[in-house]
């Protein structure tokens, strides 16, 4: 997966793709299961930041999309910009409507989804709010310096803490498989962030 694809996925969630870009990423999502999985992860991250209660896994997100579509009126207008309300839990940080992306998610992520037209064709909907695409906040490489996790060191610098966190993650990848630390080795990443 390329950085450009990741950028497009993020823009898709934030409803920042023009018609051409939307159709392009839509076709890629249909054909690429890995890309769809990445999109699911981005959705989870986005919801977490917005304080949306967590679901068990990505598949349940798709189910929620399906349920939301069932209750939301959809106007299909190929080639035209349209507007529709979206469930509050799916509104992006930018606040823009994301009708097209919701439909795309439903079609490409859920098997057996009952579409409005009772077919498996992709909704030919278009994005609503055309804005310049922002830099993807969810690229696959390190995105930002994580906040300090309260490592106690002689040199209390963010760089040292970030370095130690990275090494701890790498160590836990193997210690989780071996010996005693199969049990929740990653709890420390979540629990130690309070000074």
């Amino acid at each position: 997966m390329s950085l450009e694809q990741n950028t497009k996925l993020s823009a898709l969630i934030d409803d920042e793709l023009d018609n051409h870009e939307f159709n392009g990423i839509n076709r890629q999502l249909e054909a690429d299961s890995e890309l769809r999985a990445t999109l699911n992860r981005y959705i989870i991250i986005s919801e977490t930041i917005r304080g949306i209660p967590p679901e068990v896994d990505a598949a349940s997100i798709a189910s929620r999309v399906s349920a939301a579509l069932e209750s939301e009126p959809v106007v299909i207008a190929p080639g035209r910009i349209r507007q529709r309300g979206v469930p509050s839990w799916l509104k992006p940080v930018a606040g823009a409507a994301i009708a097209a992306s919701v439909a795309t998610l439903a079609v490409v992520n859920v098997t057996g989804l009952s579409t409005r037209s009772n077919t498996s064709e992709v909704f030919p909907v278009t994005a609503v709010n055309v804005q310049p695409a922002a830099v993807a906040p969810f690229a696959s490489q390190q995105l930002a310096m994580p906040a300090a996790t309260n490592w106690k060191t002689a040199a209390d610098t963010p760089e040292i803490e970030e370095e130690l966190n990275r090494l701890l993650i790498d160590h836990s990848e193997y210690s989780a498989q071996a010996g005693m630390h199969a049990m929740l080795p990653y709890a420390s990443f979540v629990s130690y962030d309070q000074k």
Partner: protein
Amino acid sequence: MTIARTVLPACLILSLFAGRVVAESPSGQAAYWLEKMSQAVHELNYDGHFVYIHNNNIESLRTVHSFEDGQESERLFSQNGEARELLRDDVSMTRIMPRSKNISTNPRMPDRTSFSAFFRLDPEQISRHYDVRFQGSDRVADRMVNVIAFTPVDNLRYGYRLFLDDEFAFPLQWEMFDHEQELVSRIMFTNITLSRPANPSRSVAAKPGDAAGAELPVMQGKQRIRSTNKLDNGWNFGDVPEGYTVRHLSTRNHPQNNQEINQYLFSDGLSSFSVFIEVSDKARLTGKARLGALNAYGVYVDGYQLTAVGEVPLEALVFISNTKFKTAGNAQ
């Protein structure tokens, strides 16, 4: 006390694991339970709340884990303070701190499941460094558990007390203590739902016949992580702590400067730590660092940054001060 609770420990192996011949020694039985525990943690579906106690702090977290069609995914998130979250699946691990809008993503080690297949618990090795005792049964999160204690024989490793679910061998409570029996950390579930996956498809448990001498897959490409069973990449580790041996070596590139990093995983069969070695133009971490039950120790040697990290006492990490790059003069 019911009959089941009084005779359960004695009949445990025979009734619950029919068909398997288990070594009679406590360490042999414990090794078997540990393998079942490891399998349960990775191959069950579960959703539960637990408390994490460390350094006189208590925190509440929730974990949601699924395993279907050979794919594992997990969400781990805090229930108090900032809504911190960690997402894991077979591809990546993402750490989220919403209040500070910080997100970090790391690719998963592609060989980690293969690694587990080569890591068989050795009862004899465990018994050399731990006093293993079954401590009867108890009740955690309203479920019956069997209690196993591993008491360290020296100060180079922590001890453990496991409270394993009677039905699934899932660790409902997990305690770590030091050589003086002082509690270092505790994880205890307050409620949990456990179930077997409908379509597991893949098991991470070690299979009979797996041998540490077999070649591990070499993964290259976009993740740039490579593993090897060659446990020697030119470094001479002097004074390795008693009982610890190098179990795995992997090489990857630093996410920022692209420099090569070697990771040596040491283990005594239960406890483990990693030593990371990378080229550096300056010293970074020198001396000790601590994060609850986790310790780290760093030294700067001849243009290399060496950092040891793990769930072991600091005493087990300081040996890296004597590590040297192999030359004709100090090769062994």
